């Protein structure tokens, strides 16, 4: 079954076409990678799918709901992690999770257990009462991810979740992604780290608002005739 079905999705800002007629499907439990240079339209596409941005034309069904008419229902079923860290710096780790957990209507008692479980998994139990301001970026990113999946969404959108963090945290982060996907959650992740692309089940390469290539990492390497996704990417950005 498909979690995400995008058809002819387009977004124009004035004369500028940020996303130009893209279509693709993502299966349930799949880790789908969105690759592309800066300004390729990845974030715009994600914002349309998560109900933050009104599409100019085209349709998208997310978790079975229409992004144009049913964005409230979509929001209940997705988790979203913004490119820019967007939790509250002046609240503690626990307070942030409590705030968003409550907004998603997780029952009070269950919420506390879930937060503690989640922090234990991140190895951040000791940091629960620290202001987010005071923890390092890598931990902030893990926290943002944990907060995004606290309400057990069906689909998680991750917009460049690992940009700016060290290789160890990146590895840990991908472990979290795998763990989450293994429970049947669909993951749509954007990145410009090409080694990360290899971890995805399927990837799409975007340039100038258009999807240029789509397939499993193996397929794409074979199709272009190179050994790494990095080479695939470089090959396609040259055009």
């Amino acid at each position, binding site marked *: 079954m498909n979690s995400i079905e995008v058809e002819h999705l387009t977004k124009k800002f004035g004369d500028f076409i940020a996303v130009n007629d893209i279509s693709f499907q993502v299966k349930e439990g799949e880790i789908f990678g969105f690759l592309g240079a800066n300004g390729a339209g990845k974030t715009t596409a994600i914002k349309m799918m998560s109900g933050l*941005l009104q599409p100019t034309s085209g349709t998208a069904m997310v978790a079975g709901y229409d992004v144009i008419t049913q964005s*409230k229902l979509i929001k209940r079923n997705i988790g*979203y992690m913004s490119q820019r860290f967007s939790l509250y710096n002046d609240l503690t780790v626990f307070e942030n999770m409590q705030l968003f957990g409550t907004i998603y209507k997780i029952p009070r008692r269950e919420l506390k257990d879930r937060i503690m479980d989640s922090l234990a998994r991140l190895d951040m139990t000791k940091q629960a009462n620290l202001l987010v301001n005071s923890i390092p970026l890598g931990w902030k990113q893990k926290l943002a991810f944990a907060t995004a999946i606290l309400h057990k969404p069906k689909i998680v959108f991750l917009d460049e979740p690992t940009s700016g963090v060290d290789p160890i945290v990146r590895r840990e982060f991908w472990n979290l992604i795998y763990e989450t996907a293994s429970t049947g959650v669909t993951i749509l992740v954007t990145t410009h780290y090409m080694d990360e692309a290899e971890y995805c089940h399927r990837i799409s390469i975007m340039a100038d608002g258009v999807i240029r290539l789509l397939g499993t990492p193996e397929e794409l390497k074979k199709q272009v005739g190179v050994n790494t996704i990095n080479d695939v990417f470089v090959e396609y950005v040259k055009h």
Partner: protein
Amino acid sequence: MRTILILIKKEFLQVFRNPLLMSILIVAPMVQFMIFPFCADYEIKVLDIAFIDHDGSRITQDIIHSFDASDIFVSHGIIQNKKDAEKMIQHDKIDILVEFPNQFEEDLMNGEATRIAITANAINTTKAGIGVGYTQEIIGGYMQKFQEDNMFIASEEQIPARLNLSYIYWYNEQMNYKNLIVPGILVILVTLIGCYVTALNLVREKEIGTIEQVNVTPIRRWQFLIGKMIPFWILGMVEFIMGLFIMKLVFGITVQGSIPMLLGITAIYLLVMLGLGFFISSVSENQLQAMFIVLFLFIIFVLLSGLFTPTEGMPQWAHYTNYLNPMSFYMEVIKKVVLKGSAFVSVQTETIVLSVMAVIVNTGAILSYQEKSK
């Protein structure tokens, strides 16, 4: 309900953890409140006066002495030379110069018209106006007495009309200035908390990006706005009550009317300002823009509200503009309830207008807040 409660908690935590915001909210206004009324004060306490006496008679001596009895005037005595006197005015040594003509006493005794020249240093127009007023009052007072004492000489129609100086009491209004400016500052404070702080709040979340994380949740926009409004509404009320205490303790101004009624109307006024703040916040892109819009509106509100200048003297178009100015309605309420002790009947209109404004502004704020960008 749980959603709104957690949002209120979040907002309070953020306010209390932000030292700058805390000082804006509590310390700065209170300090302003304690200092501003003492500086923004039109009351004149000292007027330097000098005299030129061409007559040198008993009456002119008496008049000059009567100025010594006044608390306000500091007499620099009689100046012999007019040039010297003018120089003193130029150098701000004296504010008022009184010149008695030749044969002043003689003319007066004969019931003939005579004139006293009063020259005022009008660099400070307020001071000059009040100074001339007081001078006329003292001379007029003396003349009154003189006239009564000398009834047998001067008959009614022979008294120069100039001596009838009842209009000078107009200036006495300025003596009560503090009673007007202090409640006025209270109005300014409530407005600032209501409008300024909230205008910056929402747009700040836009700037740092946290709003995106909120917008991606199924939260409803009215929930989000109410969760922001209630904390600042409470803070505004706390501020207002603190202001009432300071007003009483420092300035000795007691609220003449009903305090619960005053709090009720203030609560409505705060809703107008909070709504306006959020409206500005949601149409602005960044804090700078929001700040600019608030400042722009704030100055118009204050100048039109009748706090610094009486609204009676404004042109017709200003009166019409004032129908849109929530501050002028609230100012009326404060004047009436705090100073006059008016009952609800006399502030009914203002309360209704403010309530309607609150509904309109807040509806506008909710509608303008876009969770989905275009």
